[in-house]
């Protein structure tokens, strides 16, 4: 039996799964990410450094802040520029608000319908009106946080290499803190809702990789760590990871040299640094009985919901302690090279640039979370199908789609 799920719906971008089952065994499985390439790394060549954040923002309509922040950090490193501590804090607020927004969309609109045998978020009405109202309320509040410093929630404009062109007033910050306070309970409700979904059983063997910092839940910077002993500075990225072209996919696929697949994203982060979570998130996780390590890739959904609780609480604390000054220090151009890694909503994101002395891009390389997860997703799809191999075709297709969605892949990002 040949199965071709040629258009996986409710994920970001375009991809398909092709598989072949013969006499109760899975013969072949391929994840074909056929999203047409846009060649960002190709046309960034000869553009000026200060255009780069605005350009790379357009890689993704969900995580533009991640692409901008990663590019900005890589370029600042190339120029030998160190941003002010206030700027570092504001970038973390931006990142956290975007992580919460992204997880909300994924959990409510993309993943949730599967577990109630619905096709889309629109079918959630009238049965799940409460949930939809909660989603809209929370999404608006976290969008306002991103927009507070960026000018708008998507493709923010005030975030530039060097800092921020404009900062909000103390009053505006206070208003947003109050709004965040009003959704704290909704975050806990979201986690309860997600933890009650009937997740299939599956055990992941991929290596968990993420960023780790000395204090706090590392998002925008840190060393690269894994549960199999990776512990390196971000500049050593290429010594451990390798990206390959795949004949059947427009997205490239990354592996850990000499080992194999890796898993990045919310579940990987919790498995690596649960202890660093905000106390509110730890408490909420405890309430639903979540413990680490958790090796079920479907539980990436639960991990995302825990990160929603974390993101809101940490945002509030960071906002409360802001100084709102020294936001944009002029920088000096020089020839250089910079690699930066951040935790995008879907996991580890790498940007790498070579610039000349006029600040013109000579070379660009971008490795996205979905490229990092590609091999792990294929491996776990194979395992999952073997588990359900005697089920009806429709059931196998649904289970496959559910696992793809659990990874929350961004095919658009992966074929930047």
């Amino acid at each position: 039996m040949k199965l071709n799920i040629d258009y996986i719906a409710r994920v970001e971008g375009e991809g398909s799964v092709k598989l072949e089952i013969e006499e109760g065994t899975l013969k072949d499985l391929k994840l074909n990410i056929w999203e047409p390439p846009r060649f960002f790394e190709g046309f960034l060549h000869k553009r000026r450094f200060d255009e780069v954040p605005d350009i790379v923002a357009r890689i993704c309509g969900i995580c533009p802040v991640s692409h901008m922040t990663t590019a900005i950090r890589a370029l600042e490193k190339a120029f030998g520029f160190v941003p002010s501590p206030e700027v570092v804090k504001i970038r973390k607020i931006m990142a956290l608000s975007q992580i919460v927004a992204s997880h909300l969309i994924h959990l409510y609109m993309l993943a949730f319908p599967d577990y109630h045998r619905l096709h889309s978020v629109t079918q959630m009405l009238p049965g799940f009106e409460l949930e939809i109202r909660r989603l809209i309320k929370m999404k608006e509040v976290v969008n306002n946080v991103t927009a507070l410093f960026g000018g708008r929630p998507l493709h923010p404009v005030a975030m530039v290499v060097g800092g921020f062109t404009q900062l909000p007033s103390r009053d505006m910050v206070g208003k947003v803190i109050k709004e965040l306070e009003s959704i704290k309970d909704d975050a806990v409700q979201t986690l309860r809702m997600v933890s009650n979904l009937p997740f299939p059983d599956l055990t992941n063997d991929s290596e968990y990789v993420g960023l780790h910092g000395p204090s706090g839940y590392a998002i925008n910077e840190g060393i690269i760590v894994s549960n199999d002993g990776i512990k390196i500075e971000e500049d050593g990225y290429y010594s451990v990871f390798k990206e390959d072209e795949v004949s059947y996919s427009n997205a490239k696929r990354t592996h850990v040299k000499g080992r194999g697949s890796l898993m990045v994203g919310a579940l990987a982060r919790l498995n690596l640094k649960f202890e660093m979570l905000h106390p509110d998130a730890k408490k909420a996780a405890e309430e639903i009985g979540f413990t680490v390590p958790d090796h079920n890739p479907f539980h990436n959904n639960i991990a995302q919901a825990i990160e929603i609780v974390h993101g809101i609480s940490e945002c509030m604390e960071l906002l409360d302690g802001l100084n709102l000054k020294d936001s944009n220090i002029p920088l000096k151009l020089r020839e250089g090279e910079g690699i930066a890694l951040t935790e995008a909503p879907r996991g580890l994101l790498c940007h790498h640039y070579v610039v000349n002395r006029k600040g013109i891009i000579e070379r660009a390389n971008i490795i996205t979370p979905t490229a990092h997860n590609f091999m792990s997703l294929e491996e776990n799809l194979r395992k999952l199908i073997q588990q359900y191999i005697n089920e009806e075709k429709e059931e196998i297709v649904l289970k496959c789609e559910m696992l793809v969605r659990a990874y929350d892949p961004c095919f658009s990002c992966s074929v930047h």
Partner: protein
Amino acid sequence: MVSSGGTPEGPFDIALVEGTITEAWQVYELKKIRERTKYLFAIGSCAINGGIPAIKSTQPELEVQKRVYADLSPIHSIRPDTIVSYVAVDGDIKGCPPGERDLIEALTSVLSGRKPDFLEYSVCIECKIKTNICVLVAHGMPCMGPVTNAGCGALCPTNNRPCYSCWGPMKQANASALAKLFESTGMTPEDIVRRFTLFGSVTTEFRKTAERYET
């Protein structure tokens, strides 16, 4: 695609089509959608002015592709273009990200059976409405506001930086006059070209001006 299942064959009352044309099969799909749709709106800069992906058109196709893939045999990309260059549309919902006001205008105009009334003036007007100090005249920033379609609420100048034209060119934009002004402030030809090829590099409004400064 936010729904699994559904009715991919149509017919449709309204279609909102986003994205830049980057592979030939998309033209076929686009024409099929046009045939089966009463009202087709282009939504977002990619669909209307080529957006960021159209920067690729400013450089030799093969060179750009080679920088990304060593093996180009599975790659079937073509020169990026707008959707409005392939099919007739019933209106443009401009912006990157697309503007809320024009999206609501498009949908309500169809519902009430009237022609949509989209914003068709420059970002400059929005700065005047907000009583912003002109960042181009007062601070010498290379602002694209005078040639860029309104809709963002003059977001960049309001945030103390020059507009970079993410809404794309406005109708009858006098791009060459603005380029001359940039030139007079000492901007290099390379920087002027980059200014007019960030968004809208495949539009006649910006393309001609960029070509004048290409070396």
